[in-house]
Structures are given as C-alpha cells and as structure tokens.
C-alpha cells in the first residue's frame, strides 16, 4: 500500500445559497481544491462525490458523473457515495484506498448538500430517513429527538450539565464567527441563551433537554480535497502536503434500543482506535480535532469516546476551556457543525479541509492552533451507526 497525501483543499462558504445549484456548489469547491493543488489543466484519474439527499431533495441522481462533465474532467472515473451524514469521510476513505492501492494517482473527492431548498421540517424528515424504517421512523423519531434522549441519559449517567452544553455552543459559535466559511457567524453569550429571562424565547427547548443553540443549522455547502501518493505529492504539491496517516471506520446497530448501553458510542471508539493504530499515534499526540457536533452533546461524548478525556470528563473539560484555542486539545476551531453548518454530504470533507488548513498553518491567528502537526476528524453517520475517523499529519519539508 502506498502512503497517501492531501495536496489540495477547498470549500465554499456554507449557508443559504439560494442562487446555486448543488452541482454549482460541488464545482466551485472542486475548482478551489484543484487550484489549491496547482493542477491547472491536468485532469484527475477519479472523482468521488459525497452526497446524501440529491435524489430526494433535488430529484437528481448520478451527480458524480455530472460533476466530472461539468468540470471537463472526462473521462475520469466517477462514483457517488451515499453513507448518510458520514458520506463525506466515506468518500475520502474510498479515494484514499484507490490511491493507496496503486490503481489511481490523482483523485478528487468532493462533498456537497443543498438542504435549504426545502423547509426545515422537510430537511429534518429527510435526515430521519436513515433511522430504522420499521421500528423508528414510522413512530416519528428524528435525529434531534434521538439526541435529546441520548443527552438525558448522558446527563443522568455522567453528570453532564446544561451549562456544559451551553459552553460548547458558545465556544463553537465564537469560532464560527471567526471563520469566513461558517454558516453562522454570530457569537452568543451565556446571558443571552441561558441566564437572562429572555433566554426562554432566544433559546427555546428543541428536543428536551436540548435547546435551539444545542443544534446545528440546516445548511447548503460543499468542500473538496485532492489526494495523491505521498511520493508524487512531494514532487508536485505547491503547498505543504498533509499525510492521511490513518483512517478507521466502524458500524453499530441501526436502532438505538439494541445497544447494550446507548451512551456508549462504540463505532466512534472503534473508528478512532483504528485510525490511531494505523497512524501509530495516540489521542494525546493530536494538536487539533474536528468532531461531529451535530448536537453539543456529541462533541462532549465523542471527545471522551475517542480518548481525549475520560468518560464523564468531557463536559468539565469543555467548561474549563481545555477544548478551546490554546487548550489541551482544541476542538472544532472551524465552529464545527454547530456554527460552520452541516450540509450533510459536505461535512466529512469540510472537517478534513479545516484540518488541512490547520496543519498547513495558514489560518488567521485567532483560529490557528500554533505549530499544529497532527489532526483528527470524526464524521458520524446515523446516530453513531456508521463512523469514519482520520488522523492527518503535516509532512515537513
């Protein structure tokens, strides 16, 4: 197997992009990644496109081949990857395997989603289609509903407090306000969403005990990366290459009630373990991480499950500032899904793009983790039933 590096990364501002089609967004992000890699008019061997909902939301299928044609990358091989909200990282994993195997040298991986075309209710329903079609979906379960129940259990078992959840939301919105790619560029305060009497309207209960500001927004957006063998990267990359040092992927039961302990995110743990083992690194070696905080509780739970903190310590660590810039392990310096947004097919790619920017040391000081060498991502599908993790490492000259 060959070592694989990322030589190009690009994304477009997430938000509400009424003026763009899904294909427009994928094309913009892809062109930015191709430019970033200095590929000019060179083509790529293969294109993997991550997307979850085009068939339902845009009534459009086969978007990978459409993107290849749109970008004049013919006759590159084209595959669309649908793996729920983990589609983005799944697509990168497939591109990684294709390059590592030696079959392809240059691979474009793009992820995109256009969710604001429908009402919030329909977007929530669309995401809920990944729940069990017989024992969950027909009874009206939604992902926020699952997250609410998960949070209640987590609070009872590990003592996570509402204040700790609020601290995660405040941190991530603060970082999002500094990120030009973030959907929600608005810092929030504890007074505004929790302490003042007016918070009852500002931050109403969404899925008890989760409130509005515990949830990610519904967003449009796209992101892309270029993969190639490390040897080739060292010759052609105009910027510092980033090695995909390790990856992991694991699944868990489709339904939550079949799990021995629903507060244990086994697939997160296994995917992270695999990624760390393949990279020959430990959680403590990570300088920066992008975790899948579709709900604030997930940032806390994942930070424990991947090994950054002991079980029950993640919330306290967040409140103590250990996950902020300059902390023990800065988490979601992009704003995370919570503020950058969560266009589901784009998210896993956007997480990797953010870590690439971090490891190339090219962000503004107020978001850049100083001298970052190793980064980590978790892309979380379903309610933890399909999880993909990456360990990325800066390739020093």
């Amino acid at each position, binding site marked *: 197997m060959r070592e694989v590096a990322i030589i190009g990364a690009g994304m477009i*501002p997430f*938000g*509400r992009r009424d003026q763009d089609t899904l294909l427009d967004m994928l094309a913009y992000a892809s062109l930015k990644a191709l430019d970033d890699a200095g590929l000019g008019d060179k083509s790529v061997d293969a294109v993997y496109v991550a997307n979850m909902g085009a068939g339902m939301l845009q009534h459009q299928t086969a978007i990978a081949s459409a993107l290849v044609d749109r970008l004049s990358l013919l006759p590159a091989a084209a595959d669309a990857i649908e793996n729920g909200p983990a589609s983005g990282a799944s697509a990168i994993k497939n591109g990684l395997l294709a390059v590592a195997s030696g079959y392809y040298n240059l691979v474009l991986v793009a992820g995109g989603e256009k969710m604001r075309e429908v009402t919030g209710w329909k977007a929530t329903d669309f995401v809920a289609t990944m729940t069990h079609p017989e024992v969950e979906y027909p009874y009206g379960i939604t992902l926020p509903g699952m997250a609410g129940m998960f949070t209640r259990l987590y609070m009872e078992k590990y003592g996570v407090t509402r204040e700790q959840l609020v601290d995660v939301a405040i941190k991530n919105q603060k970082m999002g306000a500094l990120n030009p790619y973030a*959907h929600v560029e608005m*810092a929030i305060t504890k007074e505004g969403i929790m302490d003042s009497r*007016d*918070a009852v309207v500002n931050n*109403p209960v969404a899925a008890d005990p989760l409130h509005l500001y515990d949830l990610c927004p519904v967003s449009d957006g796209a992101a892309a990366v270029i993969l190639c063998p490390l040897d080739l990267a060292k010759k052609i990359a105009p910027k510092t290459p980033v090695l995909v040092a390790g990856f992991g992927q694991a699944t868990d039961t489709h339904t939550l009630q079949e799990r021995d302990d629903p507060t244990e995110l086994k697939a997160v743990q296994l995917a992270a373990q695999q990624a760390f083992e393949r990279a020959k690194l430990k959680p403590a070696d990570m300088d920066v991480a992008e975790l899948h905080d579709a709900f604030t509780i997930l940032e806390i739970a994942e930070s424990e499950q991947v090994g950054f903190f002991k079980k029950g310590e993640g919330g306290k660590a967040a409140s103590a500032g250990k996950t902020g810039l300059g902390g023990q392990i800065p988490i979601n310096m992009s704003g995370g899904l919570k503020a950058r947004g969560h266009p589901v097919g784009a998210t896993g790619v956007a997480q990797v793009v953010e870590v690439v920017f971090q490891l190339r040391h090219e962000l503004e000081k107020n978001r850049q983790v100083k001298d970052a060498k190793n980064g980590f991502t978790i892309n979380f599908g379903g309610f933890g039933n399909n999880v993909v993790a990456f360990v990325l490492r800066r390739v020093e000259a």
Partner: protein
Amino acid sequence: MAIDMELESVLRAPEVPQAKYPPKVITLANGKKMVVREASREDVPTLLNAVRPTVSIERDYYDIVGARLYAELLGWYRYRVRNEYCLVGQVDGFLVGIVNGRMMNEKVGISLHTLAIDRGLRVGSHLFASKMEHHIETLGNEEVWIVAESPIGFRRWMIEYGLELMPTVQHELGGATAYRLTKKLYYDTKARLVVGERPVPKKLLDEAMAEIKIADEKTIAEKIAGVKGR
C-alpha cells in the same frame, strides 16, 4: 407637497386615542440589548428608507411583507389608516425590526406585518410578541386577528401560539386564512413567548429615542438574503 387642509378633514381617517406602548428592553442571544418602543408618525420617512430595499427581496416573502408594510406605514404617515401604530426594535440605536398593527375597534386588534432586518436572533419573534402584548395589555383588545404571509410567519404565529382558526372571517389583508389570538391564549402562552424588562435603563432608551439609525441598502439586503442570511 401642498396639502389642502379643508379636503384633508374629509380624507383623513378618524382616530380614537390609543394608549402608548411602554418601552422595554430584551437581551438577545448575542448579549446585545434590543429596545422595543413605539415609533412616532414622524419616524415614518426613516422607516420607509429601511423597508424600501426589502420590496425586491424574494427570499422568505420579504417582497410582499415589505411592499405591504411600506404601504401601511405610508398610509399611517398620510393619515389614511385608522388607529395604526408601529413598534420598532433597536440595537445600539440601529433598526433591527419593525411590527405594525391597528385597532379595528376596542374589542378587535388587527395584526398587520412583522419584518426582521437582523436575522437569526429571533428579533421577529420578540417583536411579534411585543405586538400581541400591546394589543392585549396596552390597548385592552379582547382578541387580535392575524394572517401569515410567509412559512416563517406561519411557524412563528399559528403554531407557536396555537392560534384559533377563523374560517368565516376575512382579515383585511385579504382572503388568506385568518386566525386569532384571544386574551386567554395570550396569557396561556405569555410565559414562554413574551419577555423583556421595564423600565428601560435611561442610557439605552435615550440612545434609541435620539435617532433610528438604519444600515445602508446593501447591508440590509445582505442581512436578509445573503449567504449568511438565515
């Protein structure tokens, strides 16, 4: 424009004295303080400058809300609408939202429009709640008649307040389905939807009363319909 006051006495809508809305201050999610207060007729030209750019914004039906609000405010300014009022939300003196309505009679209040300029902060929700508060608590109406012209309005008013459907009543904004907020519904929902503190600290109120500042047209359009516009 020259005004013939003799004719005006015929053209002007008769009005009954209305109690003034007592200003209040609301802490927004970002920690900023929004002063909600009643605007005066003399404020209308400034308000029209803020509403004008929204008339051409299709997103979330701002065009129809903006066009109608523009006409209603102008109608009030020219004394062609009876018993109208307008409440504004200001942060650091800047206009962040407008609501208006009128009293049809002592029993019935008419909700006209709600327009948020700063989005993602529940400014519209707060101002709509203030409008209901004004009708029920200040003006003493028994009920308020309401229609929604956008899906956001429908979610915010009809669903969050659980408004009563009035299938046989036509609201004066047209034949769209009309709903009403009764006094009982208002007090049932007040604890979770109507907030704010009084009195407003003098410094904040003075700043708001001194001038209604408005952003430039491009900024208003970007706030409402840009990529980050929520």
